[in-house]
């Protein structure tokens, strides 16, 4: 399944192994894994991610379809979690396979840029000091410009 949105933890290494297995035609695989990172103050209790169930999978599938049209890819997978997750846990992963490395890298970066700013997820950090919704960064929005 190219797009999976789930509450349960997943193992990025197992995802990569699965993608590699049995390929004869792909020379290049790129993965991106996003992990829950502690706050600067080191007091993150956990992260909570809310999403829009009716929209999420379809929105990501649209991004994957776009990437598949634009670059020569053998595979483009996305796993993204929602719910509560601890420091160091994997939040999400993108994996691309292509005959050549340029396509695999570009498609993975494209998918990351779109997931950051166009997939309906909202992160909240729960720390000793309280709860804070993570603010979207202007750089993330600006990063989309390089694909148009």
């Amino acid at each position, binding site marked *: 399944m190219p797009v999976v949105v789930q509450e349960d933890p997943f193992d990025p290494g197992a995802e990569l192994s699965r993608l590699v297995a049995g390929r004869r035609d792909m020379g290049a695989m790129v993965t991106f894994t996003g992990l829950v990172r502690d706050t600067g103050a080191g007091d993150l209790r956990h992260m909570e991610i809310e999403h*829009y169930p009716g*929209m999420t999978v379809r*929105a990501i599938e649209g991004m994957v379809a776009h990437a598949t049209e634009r670059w020569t890819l053998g595979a483009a997978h996305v796993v993204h979690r929602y719910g509560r997750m601890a420091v160091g846990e994997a939040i999400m992963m993108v994996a691309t396979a292509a005959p050549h490395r340029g396509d695999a890298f570009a498609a993975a970066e494209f998918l990351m840029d779109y*997931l*950051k700013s166009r997939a309906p*997820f909202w992160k909240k950090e729960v720390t000793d000091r309280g709860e804070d*919704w993570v603010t*979207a960064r202007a750089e993330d929005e600006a990063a989309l410009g390089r694909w148009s």
Partner: protein
Amino acid sequence: MRIEVLYFAWLRERIGVPRERVETEAGTVRDLVAELRAREERYDAAFSDVSAVRVALDQELSDFDAALGDAREVAFFPPMTGG
């Protein structure tokens, strides 16, 4: 016209419900927001700065000038922070 309105993240928290059915004659998203703001203070506060609010119509990203048309679901949320 009856439409399902969804709120996410801090919009959900400020308004106090994740979704509600709304009876409206609004032509555009912007009109709908004006109707909601006129209802109660919690809506007025949540939508006080719409530059910080994004909207989806029937689960597709849209904008405040879009016509509601025969959309069945409108969702309001802050800028997304996926990835």
